């Protein structure tokens, strides 16, 4: 077991761990970005009911929802090189962080596709009819009328996913990525002060999440600027 609890170590560990926040944020940013692209790509066959692709997306989303992210991570980490081996691509030298990014992108993509699909469907049909009635094409209607409103509807859910994803990145250390959590793991081995490390980590994660919530909340306000509740609050 560890040594006697020493609160001063908590403060001492924070700068060491904080140093690795960049890696965590890198994983987050890359996986959200790729996830958004994947999410749009996956939402399209669902929206337009494209045969085969539609069923594949349904399976993809249901599988991602139904399996723990840790297992998905291992599946990608061990599975992807094996699959790519068949077509003679060697990825065994690829750094572990890329596998993490791929896993989280796939996972976020599934969630985003459902969020986008729901948001687009939630835009009032009358908006589209009005757009057609003034002579817009369906493309003009989508980009000028439907999408801006769908973004507003989707935003709170996307924001939640981002925050959830930020916390999930802490699993990256299981395949040897040196992010905050990974550094914490080595600190524990070196000092045997596990509790202090975990407290430090929770302080950092919590602060970052609070910061994210504040920022995303401001953005949400912006997206809601034409909604009744926000307008009356501003008045």
């Amino acid at each position: 077991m560890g040594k006697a609890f020493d609160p001063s170590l908590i403060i001492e560990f924070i700068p060491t761990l904080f140093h690795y926040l960049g890696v965590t944020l890198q994983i987050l940013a890359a996986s959200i970005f790729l996830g958004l692209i994947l999410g749009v790509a996956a939402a399209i066959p669902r929206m337009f009911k494209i045969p085969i692709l539609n069923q594949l997306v349904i399976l993809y989303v249901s599988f991602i929802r139904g399996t723990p992210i840790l297992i998905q991570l291992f599946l990608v980490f061990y599975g992807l090189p094996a699959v790519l081996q068949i077509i003679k691509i060697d990825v065994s030298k690829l750094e572990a962080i890329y596998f993490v990014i791929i896993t989280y992108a796939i996972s976020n993509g599934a969630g985003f596709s459902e969020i986008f699909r729901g948001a687009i469907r939630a835009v009032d049909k009358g908006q589209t009819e009005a757009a057609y009635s003034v002579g817009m094409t369906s493309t003009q209607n989508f980009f000028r009328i439907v999408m801006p409103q769908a973004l507003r509807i989707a935003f709170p859910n996307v924001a939640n996913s981002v925050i959830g994803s930020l916390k999930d990145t802490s699993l990256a250390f299981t395949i040897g990525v040196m992010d905050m959590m990974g550094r914490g793991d080595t600190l524990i081995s070196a000092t045997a002060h596990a509790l202090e490390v975990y407290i430090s980590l929770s302080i950092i994660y919590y602060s970052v999440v609070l910061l994210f919530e504040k920022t995303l909340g401001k953005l949400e306000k912006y997206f809601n600027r034409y909604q009744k509740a926000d307008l009356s609050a501003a008045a």
Partner: protein
Amino acid sequence: MINLKGIKKSFNKSEVLKGINLKIEKGEVVTILGPSGSGKTTLLRCLNFLEKPDGGMVQIGNIKVDTEKATKKEMLTIRKQSAMVFQHYNLFAHKTVLQNVMEGLIVAKRVKKKDARYRSELVLEKVGLKDKLHHYPSQLSGGQQQRVGIARALALNPEVILFDEPTSALDPELVGEVLSVIKTIAKEGITMVVVTHEMSFAREVSDRVLFMDGGVIVEEGTPLEIFHAPKEERTRRFLQRISGDSFFPPLKERVN
């Protein structure tokens, strides 16, 4: 000006329009009356292809479309001949009053922004909303929103404006302001087709009244003919049912 021939439309095998023939002259104000489910709104929506008719021919202005063979492009061209005012206003929720009116001009008609703005402000002044240019629809009352809806249609300077029960969703005290705006533009010689339940409005404004029931035009004529000497039994029964006159006097007597 507007010419419909044999317009048919079915929803899930139930026939809503059973071959409508209708001619409307330039500058004419036509109101369509009828019980709910009679097909009047569907007929209106077939005019701008919000519903694609199953058969028949639609002509507005110089554009003629055979509905069975209508391509996307043809539908778009004929849509640009008309503008619509909706029951639930359907203003673009993320755009201000001014942007709502400008949108169609800029995007569909490719009018320069400056010109679109000038024209939009002009029509908004006409409907009495010059002081609300930068408000969002959610900040307006129902009556104001519908007046924006009318301005949006008016700005496009279409061959015909289609009104789909423009006052049905309004609080009673807001109906008057919307009707008076519609009356003003009716007097300017704009061709209008109005689906409505406002009998006094229909009587006062229209050049011609159509009574629809069961997917056909049962009877048509001047307001005088329809309201005072309807020929058809169905028209008579409908007008009797809808006019509150016969119900209120006895109620009033009882109160006294």
